[in-house]
Protein backbone atom coordinates (compact mmCIF):
# COMPACT_ATOMS: atom_id res chain seq x y z
CA UNK A 1 0.00 0.00 0.00
CA UNK A 2 2.71 2.43 1.00
CA UNK A 3 4.85 1.46 -1.95
CA UNK A 4 1.88 1.90 -4.25
CA UNK A 5 1.29 5.41 -2.95
CA UNK A 6 4.95 6.19 -3.39
CA UNK A 7 4.75 4.93 -6.94
CA UNK A 8 1.72 7.13 -7.51
CA UNK A 9 3.57 10.10 -6.00
CA UNK A 10 6.44 9.77 -8.45
CA UNK A 11 4.10 9.40 -11.38
CA UNK A 12 2.01 12.36 -10.17
CA UNK A 13 5.13 14.47 -10.09
CA UNK A 14 6.12 13.52 -13.62
CA UNK A 15 2.63 14.32 -14.90
CA UNK A 16 2.72 17.75 -13.26
CA UNK A 17 6.11 18.45 -14.77
CA UNK A 18 4.87 17.24 -18.15
CA UNK A 19 1.88 19.56 -18.13
CA UNK A 20 3.89 22.54 -16.87
CA UNK A 21 7.07 22.26 -18.88
CA UNK A 22 5.30 22.57 -22.19
CA UNK A 23 8.35 23.93 -23.92
CA UNK A 24 10.15 20.66 -23.19
CA UNK A 25 7.28 18.68 -24.67
CA UNK A 26 6.94 20.87 -27.72
CA UNK A 27 10.66 20.94 -28.42
CA UNK A 28 10.89 17.17 -28.28
CA UNK A 29 8.20 16.98 -30.96
CA UNK A 30 9.97 19.43 -33.24
CA UNK A 31 12.75 17.11 -34.45
CA UNK A 32 10.46 14.25 -35.50
CA UNK A 33 8.11 16.74 -37.11
CA UNK A 34 10.93 18.20 -39.19
CA UNK A 35 11.94 14.74 -40.32
CA UNK A 36 8.41 13.77 -41.15
CA UNK A 37 7.26 16.95 -42.83
CA UNK A 38 10.42 18.28 -44.46
CA UNK A 39 12.49 15.18 -45.15
CA UNK A 40 9.53 12.84 -45.63
CA UNK A 41 7.52 15.37 -47.59
CA UNK A 42 10.46 16.50 -49.69
CA UNK A 43 11.75 13.07 -50.58
CA UNK A 44 8.19 11.74 -50.74
CA UNK A 45 7.42 14.08 -53.63
CA UNK A 46 9.76 11.95 -55.75
CA UNK A 47 10.02 8.58 -54.03
CA UNK A 48 7.69 5.87 -52.88
CA UNK A 49 8.75 2.72 -51.03
CA UNK A 50 6.96 -0.55 -50.42
CA UNK A 51 4.03 0.65 -52.42
CA UNK A 52 3.41 3.73 -50.30
CA UNK A 53 4.50 7.34 -50.41
CA UNK A 54 7.89 7.81 -48.71
CA UNK A 55 6.40 10.11 -46.09
CA UNK A 56 3.93 7.44 -45.09
CA UNK A 57 6.67 4.81 -45.25
CA UNK A 58 8.84 6.57 -42.66
CA UNK A 59 5.93 7.50 -40.41
CA UNK A 60 6.26 4.39 -38.15
CA UNK A 61 10.01 5.12 -37.96
CA UNK A 62 9.41 8.74 -36.98
CA UNK A 63 6.91 7.57 -34.39
CA UNK A 64 9.59 5.33 -32.90
CA UNK A 65 11.98 8.26 -33.07
CA UNK A 66 9.58 10.41 -31.06
CA UNK A 67 9.47 7.73 -28.38
CA UNK A 68 13.25 7.27 -28.59
CA UNK A 69 14.08 10.93 -28.07
CA UNK A 70 11.52 11.76 -25.43
CA UNK A 71 12.22 8.57 -23.46
CA UNK A 72 15.99 8.83 -23.38
CA UNK A 73 15.85 12.53 -22.56
CA UNK A 74 13.34 11.94 -19.84
CA UNK A 75 15.70 9.43 -18.27
CA UNK A 76 18.69 11.71 -18.61
CA UNK A 77 16.68 14.44 -16.92
CA UNK A 78 17.43 12.76 -13.62
CA UNK A 79 20.77 14.58 -13.72
CA UNK A 80 18.85 17.82 -13.09
CA UNK A 81 16.79 16.22 -10.38
CA UNK A 82 20.01 15.31 -8.64
CA UNK A 83 21.31 18.81 -9.14
CA UNK A 84 18.44 20.67 -7.48
CA UNK A 85 18.65 18.13 -4.67
CA UNK A 86 15.00 17.33 -5.11
CA UNK A 87 15.99 13.78 -5.75
CA UNK A 88 17.60 13.63 -2.31
CA UNK A 89 14.14 14.10 -0.84
CA UNK A 90 12.91 11.16 -2.90
CA UNK A 91 15.90 9.01 -2.04
CA UNK A 92 15.51 9.59 1.68
CA UNK A 93 11.85 8.52 1.59
CA UNK A 94 11.09 5.13 3.10
CA UNK A 95 10.41 3.65 -0.32
CA UNK A 96 12.14 0.76 -1.98
CA UNK A 97 14.43 1.75 -4.81
CA UNK A 98 12.44 -0.56 -7.07
CA UNK A 99 9.36 1.58 -6.43
CA UNK A 100 11.26 4.79 -7.09
CA UNK A 101 12.61 3.36 -10.31
CA UNK A 102 9.20 2.03 -11.37
CA UNK A 103 7.52 5.38 -10.67
CA UNK A 104 10.07 7.23 -12.75
CA UNK A 105 10.00 4.65 -15.50
CA UNK A 106 6.23 4.51 -15.85
CA UNK A 107 5.92 8.29 -15.52
CA UNK A 108 8.41 8.79 -18.33
CA UNK A 109 6.86 6.12 -20.51
CA UNK A 110 3.46 7.74 -20.23
CA UNK A 111 5.03 11.10 -21.15
CA UNK A 112 6.47 9.46 -24.25
CA UNK A 113 3.17 7.74 -25.05
CA UNK A 114 1.33 11.05 -24.96
CA UNK A 115 3.79 12.45 -27.44
CA UNK A 116 3.46 9.33 -29.56
CA UNK A 117 -0.31 9.82 -29.41
CA UNK A 118 0.10 13.35 -30.73
CA UNK A 119 2.16 11.99 -33.60
CA UNK A 120 -0.47 9.35 -34.35
CA UNK A 121 -3.11 12.05 -34.75
CA UNK A 122 -0.78 13.86 -37.10
CA UNK A 123 -0.19 10.68 -39.06
CA UNK A 124 -3.87 10.35 -39.67
CA UNK A 125 -3.86 13.69 -41.46
CA UNK A 126 -0.83 12.64 -43.51
CA UNK A 127 -2.79 9.74 -44.87
CA UNK A 128 -1.80 6.86 -42.57
CA UNK A 129 -4.89 4.85 -41.73
CA UNK A 130 -5.11 2.56 -38.72
CA UNK A 131 -7.77 0.17 -37.55
CA UNK A 132 -8.51 -0.18 -33.87
CA UNK A 133 -6.42 -3.31 -33.35
CA UNK A 134 -3.41 -1.74 -35.03
CA UNK A 135 -3.87 1.38 -32.93
CA UNK A 136 -4.02 -0.53 -29.64
CA UNK A 137 -1.06 -2.71 -30.58
CA UNK A 138 0.88 0.37 -31.66
CA UNK A 139 0.44 1.75 -28.15
CA UNK A 140 1.68 -1.56 -26.73
CA UNK A 141 4.78 -1.34 -28.93
CA UNK A 142 5.35 2.28 -27.99
CA UNK A 143 4.96 1.54 -24.30
CA UNK A 144 7.41 -1.37 -24.33
CA UNK A 145 9.90 0.68 -26.35
CA UNK A 146 9.44 3.68 -24.04
CA UNK A 147 9.89 1.66 -20.85
CA UNK A 148 13.12 0.21 -22.24
CA UNK A 149 14.49 3.56 -23.35
CA UNK A 150 13.42 5.52 -20.26
CA UNK A 151 15.24 2.85 -18.26
CA UNK A 152 18.29 3.26 -20.47
CA UNK A 153 18.17 7.03 -19.96
CA UNK A 154 17.78 6.62 -16.21
CA UNK A 155 20.73 4.21 -16.09
CA UNK A 156 22.95 6.65 -17.93
CA UNK A 157 21.57 9.71 -16.13
CA UNK A 158 22.06 8.29 -12.66
CA UNK A 159 25.69 7.52 -13.49
CA UNK A 160 26.32 11.03 -14.76
CA UNK A 161 27.40 13.89 -12.54
CA UNK A 162 26.71 16.76 -14.91
CA UNK A 163 24.95 17.60 -18.15
CA UNK A 164 28.21 17.92 -20.08
CA UNK A 165 28.01 14.37 -21.37
CA UNK A 166 24.63 14.92 -22.99
CA UNK A 167 25.99 15.74 -26.41
CA UNK A 168 28.08 12.57 -26.41
CA UNK A 169 25.07 10.45 -25.63
CA UNK A 170 23.01 12.12 -28.32
CA UNK A 171 25.76 11.67 -30.93
CA UNK A 172 26.90 8.19 -30.03
CA UNK A 173 23.71 6.59 -28.79
CA UNK A 174 20.47 8.34 -29.63
CA UNK A 175 21.15 9.28 -33.25
CA UNK A 176 22.75 5.94 -34.16
CA UNK A 177 19.79 4.14 -32.61
CA UNK A 178 17.54 6.19 -34.83
CA UNK A 179 19.54 5.89 -38.05
CA UNK A 180 20.29 2.16 -37.81
CA UNK A 181 16.69 1.30 -36.94
CA UNK A 182 15.47 1.33 -40.52
CA UNK A 183 13.21 4.23 -39.71
CA UNK A 184 14.15 5.90 -42.98
CA UNK A 185 14.78 2.94 -45.28
CA UNK A 186 13.64 -0.64 -45.87
CA UNK A 187 15.88 -3.21 -44.16
CA UNK A 188 15.33 -6.20 -46.43
CA UNK A 189 18.31 -5.62 -48.69
CA UNK A 190 20.95 -3.91 -46.55
CA UNK A 191 24.71 -4.33 -47.07
CA UNK A 192 26.19 -6.47 -44.28
CA UNK A 193 27.99 -3.62 -42.47
CA UNK A 194 24.65 -1.85 -42.02
CA UNK A 195 22.68 -4.97 -41.30
CA UNK A 196 24.82 -5.85 -38.28
CA UNK A 197 24.01 -2.58 -36.56
CA UNK A 198 20.40 -2.73 -37.60
CA UNK A 199 20.01 -6.17 -36.06
CA UNK A 200 21.70 -5.05 -32.84
CA UNK A 201 19.61 -1.87 -32.58
CA UNK A 202 16.54 -2.60 -30.45
CA UNK A 203 14.65 0.28 -32.04
CA UNK A 204 14.69 -1.71 -35.30
CA UNK A 205 12.17 -4.13 -33.86
CA UNK A 206 9.85 -1.32 -32.81
CA UNK A 207 10.03 0.28 -36.25
CA UNK A 208 9.47 -3.04 -38.00
CA UNK A 209 6.58 -3.94 -35.73
CA UNK A 210 4.92 -0.55 -36.11
CA UNK A 211 5.41 -0.67 -39.85
CA UNK A 212 3.77 -4.08 -39.91
CA UNK A 213 0.83 -2.79 -37.90
CA UNK A 214 0.29 0.38 -39.88
CA UNK A 215 1.38 -0.46 -43.38
CA UNK A 216 1.08 -4.24 -43.35
CA UNK A 217 4.69 -4.78 -44.38
CA UNK A 218 7.18 -6.04 -41.81
CA UNK A 219 10.35 -8.09 -42.23
CA UNK A 220 9.79 -10.10 -39.07
CA UNK A 221 6.52 -11.37 -37.62
CA UNK A 222 4.95 -8.70 -35.42
CA UNK A 223 4.86 -11.02 -32.40
CA UNK A 224 8.59 -11.73 -32.74
CA UNK A 225 9.32 -8.01 -32.91
CA UNK A 226 7.36 -7.50 -29.73
CA UNK A 227 9.16 -10.35 -27.99
CA UNK A 228 12.61 -9.02 -28.85
CA UNK A 229 11.56 -5.57 -27.69
CA UNK A 230 10.09 -6.93 -24.47
CA UNK A 231 13.30 -8.86 -23.82
CA UNK A 232 15.32 -5.68 -24.27
CA UNK A 233 12.93 -3.80 -21.98
CA UNK A 234 13.23 -6.53 -19.35
CA UNK A 235 17.02 -6.30 -19.35
CA UNK A 236 16.99 -2.49 -19.18
CA UNK A 237 14.47 -2.47 -16.33
CA UNK A 238 16.53 -5.02 -14.42
CA UNK A 239 19.74 -3.03 -14.84
CA UNK A 240 17.88 0.18 -14.01
CA UNK A 241 16.48 -1.22 -10.79
CA UNK A 242 19.92 -2.47 -9.86
CA UNK A 243 21.42 0.96 -10.62
CA UNK A 244 18.86 2.71 -8.44
CA UNK A 245 19.54 0.36 -5.54
CA UNK A 246 23.14 1.49 -5.59
CA UNK A 247 22.30 5.21 -5.84
CA UNK A 248 23.38 7.35 -2.95
Amino acid at each position, binding site marked *: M*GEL*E*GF*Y*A*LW*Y*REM*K*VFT*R*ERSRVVSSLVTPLLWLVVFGGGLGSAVSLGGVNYQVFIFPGILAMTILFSSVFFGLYIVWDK*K*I*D*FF*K*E*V*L*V*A*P*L*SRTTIFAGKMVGGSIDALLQGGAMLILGYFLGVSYNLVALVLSFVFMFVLASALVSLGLIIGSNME*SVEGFQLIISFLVFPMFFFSGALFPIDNLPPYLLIFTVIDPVTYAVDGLRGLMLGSSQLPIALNLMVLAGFAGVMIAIGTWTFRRL*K
Partner: protein
Amino acid sequence: MVSTIETESLSKKYGDLLAVDQLDLKIDAGEIFGLLGPNGAGKTTTLSMLATLLKPTSGTGRVNGYDILKEPDEVRRSIGIVFQDPSSDDILTGWENLYLHSLMFHVPKNERKQRIDHVLALVDLQDRANDIVKKYSGGMRRRLELARGLLHNPRILFLDEPTLGLDPQTREHIWQYIENLVKLEKVTVIITTHYMDEADRLCNRVAIIDHGKIVALDKPSALKAKVGGEIVKLRVRDPKLEPIKELDYVLSVSQSGSTLLLTVQGASAHLQEILNMVGQVESVEVRSPTLNDVFLHYTGSEIREESGEGGVFERIARVRSGR
Protein backbone atom coordinates in the same frame (compact mmCIF):
# COMPACT_ATOMS: atom_id res chain seq x y z
CA MET B 1 16.81 9.09 29.89
CA VAL B 2 16.42 7.04 26.75
CA SER B 3 18.93 7.69 24.02
CA THR B 4 17.27 8.17 20.66
CA ILE B 5 20.57 8.49 18.90
CA GLU B 6 23.77 6.72 19.76
CA THR B 7 26.90 6.50 17.70
CA GLU B 8 30.00 4.39 18.16
CA SER B 9 33.23 5.64 16.61
CA LEU B 10 31.28 6.97 13.65
CA SER B 11 33.76 8.05 10.98
CA LYS B 12 33.67 9.25 7.41
CA LYS B 13 36.64 9.66 5.15
CA TYR B 14 36.62 11.42 1.80
CA GLY B 15 39.89 10.37 0.23
CA ASP B 16 42.49 11.63 2.66
CA LEU B 17 40.13 14.01 4.40
CA LEU B 18 38.73 12.76 7.65
CA ALA B 19 35.38 14.56 7.67
CA VAL B 20 34.06 12.85 10.79
CA ASP B 21 36.53 11.36 13.19
CA GLN B 22 35.52 8.62 15.65
CA LEU B 23 32.36 10.33 16.79
CA ASP B 24 30.70 9.03 19.96
CA LEU B 25 27.39 10.70 20.60
CA LYS B 26 24.42 10.08 22.84
CA ILE B 27 21.35 12.17 22.25
CA ASP B 28 18.40 11.93 24.63
CA ALA B 29 14.74 11.73 23.69
CA GLY B 30 12.99 15.07 23.71
CA GLU B 31 15.99 17.32 23.68
CA ILE B 32 17.07 19.86 21.15
CA PHE B 33 20.60 18.94 20.38
CA GLY B 34 22.91 21.23 18.47
CA LEU B 35 25.93 20.40 16.37
CA LEU B 36 27.76 23.69 16.26
CA GLY B 37 30.77 24.38 14.14
CA PRO B 38 32.15 26.24 11.15
CA ASN B 39 31.43 25.20 7.58
CA GLY B 40 33.29 22.02 6.76
CA ALA B 41 33.51 20.87 10.35
CA GLY B 42 31.65 17.65 9.56
CA LYS B 43 28.18 18.57 10.80
CA THR B 44 26.28 17.81 7.64
CA THR B 45 28.28 14.64 7.03
CA THR B 46 27.35 13.42 10.51
CA LEU B 47 23.71 14.23 9.86
CA SER B 48 23.74 12.47 6.50
CA MET B 49 25.16 9.32 8.06
CA LEU B 50 22.53 9.33 10.81
CA ALA B 51 19.81 9.81 8.18
CA THR B 52 21.25 6.83 6.22
CA LEU B 53 22.02 9.02 3.23
CA LEU B 54 25.73 8.35 3.56
CA LYS B 55 27.46 5.14 4.58
CA PRO B 56 30.02 5.60 7.32
CA THR B 57 33.58 4.57 6.51
CA SER B 58 33.72 2.90 9.91
CA GLY B 59 31.73 2.80 13.10
CA THR B 60 27.98 2.71 13.39
CA GLY B 61 25.00 4.22 15.15
CA ARG B 62 21.42 3.69 16.20
CA VAL B 63 18.55 6.06 15.51
CA ASN B 64 15.25 5.49 17.33
CA GLY B 65 16.64 2.07 18.21
CA TYR B 66 17.29 1.15 14.56
CA ASP B 67 20.73 0.37 13.25
CA ILE B 68 21.74 2.88 10.58
CA LEU B 69 23.61 0.22 8.65
CA LYS B 70 21.18 -2.67 8.93
CA GLU B 71 17.76 -1.01 9.15
CA PRO B 72 17.87 2.11 6.98
CA ASP B 73 14.18 1.96 6.02
CA GLU B 74 13.05 1.91 9.65
CA VAL B 75 15.40 4.78 10.41
CA ARG B 76 14.00 6.83 7.54
CA ARG B 77 10.39 6.26 8.48
CA SER B 78 10.99 7.60 11.97
CA ILE B 79 12.86 10.77 11.06
CA GLY B 80 12.21 14.02 9.26
CA ILE B 81 14.93 15.96 7.50
CA VAL B 82 15.31 19.51 6.35
CA PHE B 83 18.29 19.69 4.04
CA GLN B 84 20.70 22.57 3.86
CA ASP B 85 20.33 22.98 0.09
CA PRO B 86 16.92 23.54 -1.48
CA SER B 87 15.30 20.18 -2.05
CA SER B 88 11.75 21.11 -2.97
CA ASP B 89 10.64 20.69 -6.54
CA ASP B 90 10.45 24.16 -8.03
CA ILE B 91 8.15 23.12 -10.86
CA LEU B 92 5.46 22.09 -8.38
CA THR B 93 3.41 24.28 -6.04
CA GLY B 94 4.04 24.30 -2.32
CA TRP B 95 0.92 22.26 -1.74
CA GLU B 96 1.92 19.69 -4.35
CA ASN B 97 5.34 19.32 -2.77
CA LEU B 98 3.71 18.56 0.57
CA TYR B 99 1.19 16.23 -1.02
CA LEU B 100 3.98 14.26 -2.69
CA HIS B 101 5.80 14.02 0.61
CA SER B 102 2.65 12.78 2.37
CA LEU B 103 2.37 10.04 -0.23
CA MET B 104 6.01 9.02 -0.08
CA PHE B 105 6.13 9.03 3.72
CA HIS B 106 2.89 7.10 4.15
CA VAL B 107 0.75 9.73 5.88
CA PRO B 108 -2.70 8.05 6.23
CA LYS B 109 -5.11 9.25 3.59
CA ASN B 110 -7.67 10.68 6.00
CA GLU B 111 -5.02 12.78 7.77
CA ARG B 112 -3.24 14.13 4.71
CA LYS B 113 -5.22 17.29 4.08
CA GLN B 114 -5.34 18.21 7.72
CA ARG B 115 -1.60 17.61 8.21
CA ILE B 116 -0.75 19.65 5.12
CA ASP B 117 -2.94 22.55 6.26
CA HIS B 118 -1.44 22.26 9.73
CA VAL B 119 2.17 22.49 8.64
CA LEU B 120 1.42 25.19 6.09
CA ALA B 121 -0.08 27.30 8.86
CA LEU B 122 2.99 26.76 11.00
CA VAL B 123 5.21 28.41 8.44
CA ASP B 124 2.64 30.98 7.29
CA LEU B 125 2.47 29.72 3.75
CA GLN B 126 -1.28 29.09 3.48
CA ASP B 127 -1.72 32.02 1.12
CA ARG B 128 1.09 30.92 -1.15
CA ALA B 129 0.38 27.20 -1.08
CA ASN B 130 -0.83 27.14 -4.65
CA ASP B 131 2.04 29.14 -6.08
CA ILE B 132 4.79 27.38 -7.94
CA VAL B 133 7.90 27.07 -5.77
CA LYS B 134 10.00 28.77 -8.46
CA LYS B 135 8.22 32.00 -7.43
CA TYR B 136 9.10 31.60 -3.75
CA SER B 137 11.86 33.58 -2.09
CA GLY B 138 14.74 31.62 -0.60
CA GLY B 139 13.23 32.10 2.85
CA MET B 140 9.79 30.88 1.82
CA ARG B 141 11.34 27.85 0.26
CA ARG B 142 13.09 26.96 3.50
CA ARG B 143 9.84 27.41 5.38
CA LEU B 144 8.15 25.03 2.99
CA GLU B 145 10.89 22.48 3.46
CA LEU B 146 10.66 22.83 7.22
CA ALA B 147 6.92 22.21 6.97
CA ARG B 148 7.62 19.19 4.85
CA GLY B 149 10.05 17.75 7.36
CA LEU B 150 7.34 17.84 10.01
CA LEU B 151 4.55 16.52 7.82
CA HIS B 152 4.76 12.83 8.64
CA ASN B 153 5.00 13.26 12.43
CA PRO B 154 8.61 12.10 12.74
CA ARG B 155 10.02 11.21 16.16
CA ILE B 156 13.31 12.86 15.33
CA LEU B 157 13.68 15.93 13.21
CA PHE B 158 17.03 16.67 11.62
CA LEU B 159 17.50 20.32 10.73
CA ASP B 160 20.57 21.17 8.71
CA GLU B 161 21.11 24.92 9.19
CA PRO B 162 17.36 25.44 9.64
CA THR B 163 17.17 29.23 9.69
CA LEU B 164 19.89 30.02 7.22
CA GLY B 165 18.71 33.02 5.27
CA LEU B 166 15.48 33.69 7.11
CA ASP B 167 14.57 37.16 8.33
CA PRO B 168 14.73 37.70 12.11
CA GLN B 169 10.98 37.59 12.55
CA THR B 170 10.67 34.28 10.76
CA ARG B 171 13.66 32.84 12.58
CA GLU B 172 12.01 33.71 15.88
CA HIS B 173 8.74 32.20 14.66
CA ILE B 174 10.41 28.98 13.66
CA TRP B 175 12.45 28.77 16.85
CA GLN B 176 9.24 29.08 18.86
CA TYR B 177 7.65 26.40 16.78
CA ILE B 178 10.56 24.03 17.17
CA GLU B 179 10.38 24.54 20.94
CA ASN B 180 6.64 23.92 20.95
CA LEU B 181 7.00 20.81 18.90
CA VAL B 182 9.48 19.34 21.34
CA LYS B 183 7.21 20.20 24.25
CA LEU B 184 3.92 19.01 22.77
CA GLU B 185 4.85 16.08 20.58
CA LYS B 186 7.99 14.81 22.29
CA VAL B 187 10.02 15.15 19.15
CA THR B 188 13.77 15.13 19.39
CA VAL B 189 15.42 17.78 17.28
CA ILE B 190 18.97 17.63 16.00
CA ILE B 191 20.18 20.93 14.61
CA THR B 192 23.36 21.71 12.81
CA THR B 193 24.16 25.37 12.82
CA HIS B 194 26.96 27.83 12.69
CA TYR B 195 24.75 30.51 14.26
CA MET B 196 25.77 30.96 17.86
CA ASP B 197 22.55 32.69 18.83
CA GLU B 198 20.52 29.86 17.37
CA ALA B 199 22.38 27.19 19.29
CA ASP B 200 22.25 29.27 22.45
CA ARG B 201 18.57 30.06 22.14
CA LEU B 202 17.30 26.64 21.13
CA CYS B 203 19.54 23.86 22.22
CA ASN B 204 19.41 21.96 25.49
CA ARG B 205 22.86 20.67 24.71
CA VAL B 206 25.44 21.69 22.19
CA ALA B 207 28.32 19.71 20.75
CA ILE B 208 31.00 21.96 19.41
CA ILE B 209 32.51 20.21 16.47
CA ASP B 210 35.70 21.10 14.65
CA HIS B 211 37.63 19.08 12.08
CA GLY B 212 35.23 16.17 12.53
CA LYS B 213 35.74 15.93 16.27
CA ILE B 214 33.66 17.00 19.23
CA VAL B 215 35.77 19.45 21.18
CA ALA B 216 33.13 20.23 23.82
CA LEU B 217 29.68 19.01 24.69
CA ASP B 218 27.38 20.47 27.33
CA LYS B 219 24.51 22.81 28.02
CA PRO B 220 25.11 26.23 26.48
CA SER B 221 25.23 27.82 29.95
CA ALA B 222 27.74 25.27 31.18
CA LEU B 223 29.88 25.74 28.11
CA LYS B 224 29.88 29.48 28.65
CA ALA B 225 30.75 29.00 32.29
CA LYS B 226 33.80 27.02 31.24
CA VAL B 227 35.22 30.11 29.62
CA GLY B 228 35.64 31.19 33.22
CA GLY B 229 34.95 34.90 33.14
CA GLU B 230 33.62 37.81 31.18
CA ILE B 231 34.79 38.94 27.82
CA VAL B 232 36.47 42.33 27.61
CA LYS B 233 36.86 43.71 24.14
CA LEU B 234 39.19 46.68 23.79
CA ARG B 235 40.29 48.85 20.97
CA VAL B 236 43.69 50.15 21.85
CA ARG B 237 46.27 52.24 20.01
CA ASP B 238 49.66 50.51 20.45
CA PRO B 239 48.46 47.90 22.92
CA LYS B 240 50.90 46.69 25.58
CA LEU B 241 50.16 43.02 25.92
CA GLU B 242 52.92 41.72 28.16
CA PRO B 243 51.81 43.26 31.50
CA ILE B 244 48.22 42.20 30.80
CA LYS B 245 49.22 38.62 30.26
CA GLU B 246 50.96 38.63 33.66
CA LEU B 247 47.72 39.36 35.53
CA ASP B 248 46.36 36.21 37.13
CA TYR B 249 42.71 37.20 36.66
CA VAL B 250 43.23 37.51 32.91
CA LEU B 251 42.62 34.03 31.58
CA SER B 252 43.32 34.56 27.92
CA VAL B 253 44.38 37.27 25.53
CA SER B 254 43.98 37.40 21.82
CA GLN B 255 44.75 40.19 19.42
CA SER B 256 43.73 41.06 15.91
CA GLY B 257 45.06 44.44 14.81
CA SER B 258 44.11 47.04 17.36
CA THR B 259 41.35 44.90 18.84
CA LEU B 260 42.06 42.90 21.98
CA LEU B 261 39.85 40.18 23.30
CA LEU B 262 40.43 39.28 26.96
CA THR B 263 38.79 36.72 29.15
CA VAL B 264 38.73 38.23 32.62
CA GLN B 265 37.59 36.88 35.98
CA GLY B 266 35.58 39.51 37.84
CA ALA B 267 35.86 41.96 35.00
CA SER B 268 33.91 44.75 36.68
CA ALA B 269 36.32 44.81 39.63
CA HIS B 270 39.47 44.69 37.54
CA LEU B 271 38.55 46.76 34.51
CA GLN B 272 40.15 49.99 35.70
CA GLU B 273 43.43 48.26 36.36
CA ILE B 274 43.49 46.76 32.90
CA LEU B 275 42.65 50.06 31.26
CA ASN B 276 45.50 51.74 33.10
CA MET B 277 48.04 49.23 31.87
CA VAL B 278 47.05 48.46 28.32
CA GLY B 279 47.65 51.78 26.58
CA GLN B 280 45.50 54.42 24.94
CA VAL B 281 42.02 52.88 24.93
CA GLU B 282 39.56 53.95 22.25
CA SER B 283 36.62 51.76 23.19
CA VAL B 284 35.69 49.19 25.79
CA GLU B 285 33.04 46.52 25.83
CA VAL B 286 32.38 44.09 28.65
CA ARG B 287 29.99 41.25 28.09
CA SER B 288 29.17 37.73 29.16
CA PRO B 289 30.73 35.01 27.09
CA THR B 290 28.81 33.80 24.05
CA LEU B 291 29.14 30.44 22.40
CA ASN B 292 31.45 32.15 19.96
CA ASP B 293 33.86 32.76 22.84
CA VAL B 294 33.41 29.14 23.86
CA PHE B 295 34.33 28.07 20.38
CA LEU B 296 37.35 30.36 20.46
CA HIS B 297 38.26 28.93 23.84
CA TYR B 298 38.27 25.37 22.58
CA THR B 299 39.58 25.71 19.07
CA GLY B 300 41.62 28.88 19.11
CA SER B 301 39.81 30.26 16.11
CA GLU B 302 36.57 32.12 15.67
CA ILE B 303 33.57 30.89 13.76
CA ARG B 304 33.12 33.15 10.80
CA GLU B 305 29.57 34.38 10.71
CA GLU B 306 28.04 34.30 7.30
CA SER B 307 25.40 36.85 6.59
CA GLY B 308 22.17 34.95 6.29
CA GLU B 309 20.83 36.09 2.94
CA GLY B 310 24.22 36.02 1.35
CA GLY B 311 24.60 32.47 2.49
CA VAL B 312 21.42 31.36 0.81
CA PHE B 313 22.22 33.09 -2.45
CA GLU B 314 25.72 31.71 -2.45
CA ARG B 315 24.27 28.29 -1.91
CA ILE B 316 21.72 28.70 -4.66
CA ALA B 317 24.40 30.02 -6.97
CA ARG B 318 26.57 27.07 -6.08
CA VAL B 319 23.71 24.67 -6.77
CA ARG B 320 22.83 26.33 -10.04
CA SER B 321 26.38 26.29 -11.26
CA GLY B 322 26.67 22.66 -10.34
CA ARG B 323 28.60 23.22 -7.14
